[in-house]
């Protein structure tokens, strides 16, 4: 008897010897595998502003081995920096923050190469756009919009992701700005695709070649449940004019039919078959989100600069339209756990694998054709990449980002959403408005609200700014909840609280790892965290 597991453990295709580095990274390799780790090791992340939240974000990227990092800042370390930033100490006071933070972070991991640069806010403007090309991702902490918006435009055009973080008192904000993010390895719960409703000839031959009645008791208890389902499904269809069980009552009846075949008490395989009836009788279709990706213009109208993702999507689209696919996506080839004897399990496995390979080969040759037609080498997309794409073709993810400009321009802002959310009790949208208001305040006053003796005036001004923002979106008032949030902001005086910055650094780095490795589904596009309520919200703004 055999229980074969669906192996979804991420692993590299090429054999390798376990090195000290693999050992150090063992616990994360189990999340994103060698290809994710390689992407991380090739990445160069730059942090603008050596704040606590920024340093914590980098810490969480340096520890898992991000290839290089650069800290950009123009300030000298003060006592209050030391108080809140773990990567500065008493001896750093009076020295450049960028250098000191880079130095402390470097100590965490020698696999990661750290640098620093001293650039003032006004100098960012004068940078040549090509300056940013060496970075794979930019993290910006609390940079005023007049400086950040132009940077975000440059990065947007260059398709370099920008991750904006803000941490003031108990409040934190995270915004991901990137025009397009595609994910193949989205790590769905399962990639099992059984096709019991539409078996191909080899699978049918295997199942219908089994004569249940003629089997010994032992063999009978080892018929894989997939075969049992196919056999009984055929019986059912023959008796019902060719249609499968579709209603609840019919499915119940179908279960009863399978039960009639049980011979011994040790009929685990029959139990498995009965438990899978619901899934087995579902029609195999192309999930709507995958279909939308296949139909997307970027797949249908390829150009020489089209990314691999869309070329692969186009090949899959062509596959689903080809007669050999029967209108389906490529088979994943993954088999679930089941009770079976080794021989029939391996036989079944090879039937699923050969079919998956056959589909894969079709897609691979189509990919080569497409590449050639675009004037690119036929092998520009590796066979591993085709493999992975086929395997996850049911679970592809594409995010089309919104630019910071769109968010900050009233005519393109998600005004309705924001105003609606503000009406909700205890809405975290009030915190979002608060961050926006604080940004404007800082831009005008060149200081944070609450950093003077007389804070009442600051609170008044901040409220006026908030009203401007809400007003620009079509709102008419700053409600009570927002007013109390603004009051909190004034109380915080623009200062960071270490544990909130640390938490934000965790959330930000987590999303950055997803962006860099192109694995798992990242957040879109704004998160607000409120440390008073310990709650968070995610919106696309």
């Amino acid at each position, binding site marked *: 008897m055999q229980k074969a597991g669906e192996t979804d453990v991420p692993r590299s295709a090429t054999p390798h010897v376990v090195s000290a580095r693999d050992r150090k990274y063992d616990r994360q390799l189990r999340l994103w595998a060698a290809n994710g780790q390689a992407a991380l090791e090739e990445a160069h992340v730059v942090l603008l502003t050596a704040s606590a939240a920024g340093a914590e974000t980098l810490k969480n990227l340096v520890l898992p081995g991000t290839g290089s990092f650069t800290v950009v800042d123009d300030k000298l370390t003060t006592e209050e920096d030391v108080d809140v930033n773990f990567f500065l100490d008493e001896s750093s006071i009076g020295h450049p923050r960028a250098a000191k933070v880079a130095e402390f972070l470097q100590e965490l991991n020698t696999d990661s190469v750290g640098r620093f640069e001293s650039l003032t806010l006004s100098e960012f403007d004068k940078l040549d756009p090509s300056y940013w090309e060496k970075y794979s991702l930019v993290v910006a902490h609390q940079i005023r919009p007049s400086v950040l918006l132009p940077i975000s435009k440059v990065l947007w055009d260059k398709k370099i992701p920008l991750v904006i973080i803000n941490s003031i008192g108990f409040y934190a904000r995270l915004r991901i700005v990137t025009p397009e993010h595609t994910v193949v390895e989205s790590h769905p719960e399962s990639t099992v695709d059984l096709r019991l409703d539409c078996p191909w000839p080899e699978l049918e031959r295997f199942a219908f070649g089994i004569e249940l009645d003629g089997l010994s008791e032992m063999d009978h208890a080892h018929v894989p449940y997939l075969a049992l389902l196919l056999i009984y499904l055929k019986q059912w269809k023959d008796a019902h004019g060719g249609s499968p069980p579709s209603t609840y009552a019919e499915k119940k009846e179908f279960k009863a039919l399978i039960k009639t075949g049980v011979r011994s008490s040790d009929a685990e395989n029959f139990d498995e078959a009965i438990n899978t009836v619901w899934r087995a009788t579902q029609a195999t279709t192309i999930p709507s989100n995958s279909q939308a990706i296949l139909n997307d213009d970027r797949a249908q109208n390829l150009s020489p600069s089209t990314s691999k993702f869309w070329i692969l999507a186009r090949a899959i689209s062509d596959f689903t339209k080809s007669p050999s696919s029967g209108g389906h996506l490529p088979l994943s080839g993954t088999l679930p756990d089941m009770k079976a004897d080794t021989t029939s399990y391996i036989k079944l496995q090879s039937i699923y694998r050969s079919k998956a390979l056959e589909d894969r080969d079709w897609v691979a040759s189509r990919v080569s054709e497409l590449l050639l037609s675009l004037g690119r080498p036929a092998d520009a997309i590796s066979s591993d990449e085709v493999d992975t794409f086929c395997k996850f073709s049911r679970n592809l993810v594409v995010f089309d980002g919104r630019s910071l400009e769109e968010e900050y321009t009233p005519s393109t802002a998600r005004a309705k959403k924001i105003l609606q959310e503000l009406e909700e009790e205890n809405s975290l949208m009030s915190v979002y408005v608060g961050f926006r208001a604080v940004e404007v305040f800082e831009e005008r006053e060149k200081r944070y609200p609450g950093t003077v003796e007389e804070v009442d005036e600051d609170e008044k001004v901040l409220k006026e700014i908030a009203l401007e923002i809400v007003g620009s979106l079509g709102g008419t008032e700053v409600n009570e909840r927002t007013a109390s949030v603004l009051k909190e902001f004034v109380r915080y005086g623009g200062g960071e609280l270490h544990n909130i910055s640390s938490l934000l650094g965790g959330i930000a780095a987590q999303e950055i790892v997803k962006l860099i490795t192109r694995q798992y589904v990242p957040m879109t596009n704004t998160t607000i965290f409120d440390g008073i309520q310990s709650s968070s*919200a995610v919106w696309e703004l």
Partner: protein
Amino acid sequence: MSRDTYAKQILGDAYENIKNAKILMVGAGGIGCELLKNLVLAGFGEVHLVDLDTIDLSNLNRQFLFGHEHIKKSKALVAKETASKFNPEVNLVAYHANIKDPQFSVSWFKSFDLVMNALDNLDTRRYVNRMCLTANVPMIDSGTTGYNGQMRVVVKGVTECYECNPIETPKSFPVCTIRTTPSQPIHCIVWAKSYLFNQLFGIDEDEATAPELDNTETADNAEELKNLRTENEELKKVKDAFGTLEFPKLVFEKVFKIDIDRLLSLADAWRTRRPPVPLDYSAVKTAADEAGLDSQKKVTMLAADDQPIWNLVENFAVFADSISRLSNRLVELQQEAGSQSKKPILVFDKDDDDTLDFVTAAANLRSIVFGIETKSKFEIKQMSGNIIPAIATTNAIVAGLCVTQAFKILNNDLEHAKMVYISQPPARMLSAGTLPPANVHCGVCGIARAAISVDPEKLTLGDFLEKVLKSKLGYSEEVSIVTSKLLYDIEFDDNLEKTFVELGVSDGSFITIMDEEEPEDGSPGRVNLEFIVLAKGDKNGDAEGDAYVLDQIPEIPKKPKAEKEPASEDEGMIVASAAPKRKADEISGDDTNLNKKSKTDGNGDSATIVIDDEDGAFLID
């Protein structure tokens, strides 16, 4: 501005409480490093940290208070050393010790304002939960696994305790499945790790304690268990050849030939199962030699690649080689130990290649014998080592949340304390919910607790019953006294003459007293009373010179009434249930299911007995 200007400004009045707070942090691993950094920078006055563990290379991708130079050193001591540099004003006290050690008594727990758990296993969590309940100290528990995590506050009598809801225990397998009728790779891995490895290199009678083995004897399996004992006896004889060149061969023949032949003789077992196929040592050995796997160097190279699935001869070669490596190590240890009474043993460690090679090869050979799928070393590492993916980011998030809750507890703002789950976008990142009230029927926090100091060699169960339970606490003889087994009830008084030591009750044991008397007026009896037993250091007993000291007479409330069906007599009235539904608006704006368990990622087998790694986690079932 001075150093703590922002902290004062942001935290307001709470800041003073934080500065004066005394915190106990249990565990200095993944979450522990983050937590300690946060506590130090937030300016908590005094932090004690306890961790038994030492630093391993695989910790360094997230446990940032440690560097390469600290490998094999104490986590607690190194964490203290590194963190204290960043705020010399915080008083840090580190213990490289087990939190269950007697030095960490109930009164010691009582000296803290708050206990923060950054633990990696269920057993210790339960223990700390009980200690906090006994000492009446609030606790914050946290855990992470991969990208997911959770955090919650536990306050005695107010919130759910760690055990108010049944916790899924790690899956255990009937001993016969493991020893006689394996059907999945995991069965063979458990066999290799929990049985064979321990028999050869560890403690002999481990089956009794290995949590993965359930060896309850029933009428059905008596025969099998008898057979297994024969097997054990034979294996002990094989062990006489320990350290000799013959040893790997003898072990191989014993477990893959002789034992299998014996199993085959149990014809009944193979009526509906594929019978196992024994392996022939000389045939496999010849094949291995022919395959060129004849030198240790070649085998080492083979074993170094953990990705491919080894075939029969490869498994054979690694099996023989790893046995030699392990035997040599044990022999060396024994020579070093000399005539010390405690015999050195080897312990399985997923990060120790010698032990992992052995378990991989032995498990796969057994799989081959039983016609079960074999696995790669990489996969077996995960399945045998209870490995949970662990990264810095999730730990940072959880630790940050823990500190926000600590602020609330120290500010006596329990009303706003939360439990928070970290989940995956796109839905949301954190789901916060109010803390469910204590379950009045909980067998852990819904009971009375007390500590008793005893001289376990002197105090008999009879004295305990008469002098403590009856005269001091007012019980009748209608009680049950229970540890992991029944010690006494009204119909079972065999143990009354025995001392605590003889009954296996020692320092740190828990004894539960159940009131079995049914008052004539039909009123409910008293709730259970759980004693934690402390072995007395000094001998000044009670006035009578008794072998016990009971500091405080505990209050033992009546049992809550059994819940009634809100049908007949209370028509129209809603009887308060033990766990009222959370108000929708208290769960921050989303319909996330707060009690959801982490999901497996379709790994089938591998997730079954996972407990957790350095970062503490919930169970995956």
